[in-house]
């Protein structure tokens, strides 16, 4: 009798650990301690390298944030993981490529107002290009939503999810056609020249072309500044739209309860379209910023950044806008730091390990609310 009782006690204890998520939590704490110890020692031994990585990670994190917002907003309003979102990002990058390389759209202020200072003229030209990318991506997303997702609004969620994967493949392989984008890697032409500065004990100096980087300096370029500034600007605009405008309040109302929103006279379909459009516009902007940072466009370029931004959205708590930002900044740091201190090929593995750990330990993410999932 006693022995038969003792046998199942081991698996039930294991069950207990798994059920209470203790194993996942222990794993998480262990990993966090290891990471902190590793990062701490690196910070002490080579603070400039560490700072350099943090700056690079910030730049990447903000690009991820712009993409992640689209995932999280669309999920918040129609409960759909829009897997085609990364490919909308790719379309944005290609649109800015065509606008710059084929049409020279970024030079229009110089042509129309020759007296403008070159910096201002390129600035206005680049803003035009990014706005164009955003607008085209918004149109693409509205079309996708109307054609592919809207007919499935009342279908089981898995149908829409599979459709999203289909749309993703469609955008990729349609883009790969020779007469659409291209099946090849294309070098991206930046609308402006790269200027790099180095920060050291001597202060800030411009780095000359071909000059070796001295020891104990941190370098940054106008690209990082532009990415961070543009991203923050777009985030502020988004915050304003969602928080203060009528359409933003309607978006939150529809996300909370579609039937009641209809009783208020809100046109739920157009609010959903606007949500898709805003998310896609942010992805379009991210596409151009990403192509400026890593100057190459390719029809598959949306997959990995898209997936990482998705992980960022889940990490922050899908459906939560501040969560997407925080999650993306963490993802940016995790990627850059693991490339620097573990190994470059490992960085993608690290990103998806984070997804697994989040799903094990806290599936609702940092800012997620448990009860929203049932709605």
């Amino acid at each position, binding site marked *: 009798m006693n022995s038969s009782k003792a046998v199942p006690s081991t698996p039930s204890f294991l069950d207990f650990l798994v059920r209470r998520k203790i194993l996942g939590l222990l794993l998480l704490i262990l990993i966090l301690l290891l990471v902190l110890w590793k990062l701490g020692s690196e910070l002490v031994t080579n603070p400039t390298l560490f700072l350099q990585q943090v700056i690079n990670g910030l730049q990447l994190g903000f690009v991820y944030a712009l993409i992640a917002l689209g995932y999280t907003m669309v999920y918040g309003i129609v409960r759909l993981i829009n897997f085609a979102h990364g490919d909308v990002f790719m379309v944005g990058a290609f649109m800015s490529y065509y606008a710059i390389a084929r049409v020279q759209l970024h030079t229009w202020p110089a042509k129309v107002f020759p007296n403008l200072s070159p910096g201002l003229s390129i600035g206005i030209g680049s803003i035009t290009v990014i706005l164009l990318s955003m607008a085209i991506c918004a149109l693409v997303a509205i079309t996708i939503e109307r054609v592919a997702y809207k007919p499935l609004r009342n279908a089981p969620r898995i149908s829409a999810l599979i459709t999203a994967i289909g749309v993703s493949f469609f955008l990729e392989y349609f883009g790969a056609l020779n007469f659409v984008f291209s099946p090849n890697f294309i070098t991206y032409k930046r609308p402006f020249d790269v200027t790099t500065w180095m920060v050291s004990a001597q202060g800030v100096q411009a780095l000359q072309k071909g000059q070796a980087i001295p020891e104990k300096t941190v370098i940054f370029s106008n690209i990082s500044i532009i990415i961070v500034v543009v991203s923050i600007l777009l985030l502020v605009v988004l915050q304003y739209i969602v928080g203060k405008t009528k359409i933003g*309040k309607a978006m939150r109302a529809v996300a909370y309860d579609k*039937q009641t929103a209809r*009783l208020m006279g809100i046109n739920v379909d157009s609010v959903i379209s606007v949500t898709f459009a805003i998310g896609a516009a942010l992805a379009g902007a991210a596409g151009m910023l990403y192509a400026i940072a890593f100057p190459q466009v390719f029809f598959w370029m949306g997959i990995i950044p898209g997936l990482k931004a998705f992980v960022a959205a889940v990490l922050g708590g899908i459906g939560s806008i501040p969560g997407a930002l925080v999650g993306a900044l963490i993802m940016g740091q995790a990627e850059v730091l693991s490339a620097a201190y573990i190994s470059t090929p490992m960085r993608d593995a690290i990103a998806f390990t984070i997804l697994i750990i989040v799903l094990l330990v806290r599936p609702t993410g940092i800012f997620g609310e448990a009860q929203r999932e049932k709605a």
Partner: protein
Amino acid sequence: MMLEVKDLNVYYGAIHALRGINFHLEKGEIVTLIGANGAGKSTTLNTISGLLRARSGQILFQGEDITYTEAQDIVRKGIIQVPEGRKIFATLSVIENLEMGAYLQTDQAQIQSDLEAVLKRFPRLRERRKQFGGTLSGGEQQMLAIARGLMSRPSLLLLDEPSMGLSPILVEQIFEIIRDINEQGTSILLVEQNAQMALSIADRGYVLETGRVVLEGPAQELLHNPMVIEAYLGGHG
């Protein structure tokens, strides 16, 4: 005639929820639909509001056929539903909930004066105007739901179970408010399980059973009708 419902048939899939309902409402009236759970009261309101589609029959609003009109256009015409269970937007503040009520209003000055008027009518909402809707108590939520409905400037207000889950004192208050709104010129279609309260403020009433109108008449007559007393008023007659 403000509202006329003619031979309305509504299905949920294979379930025949409304089986040829007929009723009407004159301008300025309070008309109540009473009946047990599942009798089709909320279905009727949702069909009028355009959330559900009738398979056959007709809904006329001020003589105009609105049977197949979109929900937002029905709101635009002035038919506003305050849904069962309040359905406050929990993640929006009290003020934002009220602004959603005024979603189709375009005159900013008018929205502001309407807002001022409902906050005057419901002082509790003014106290809590910055709070999230989800943090209000049941009674406050019901007041917010009615206030939100008033922000749409209704000519016909559809109220679905406004007394549900409220204490007797709050129920008295809510019915006082309903009577007051009616006296200021809004016609009211009131759906209630609390037949006693509903009939006491209504002009006329209809009794629904399994998707059919089984009895109709002036509210005072229904209050003393033996069948109504037996089935809905606790059978004390």
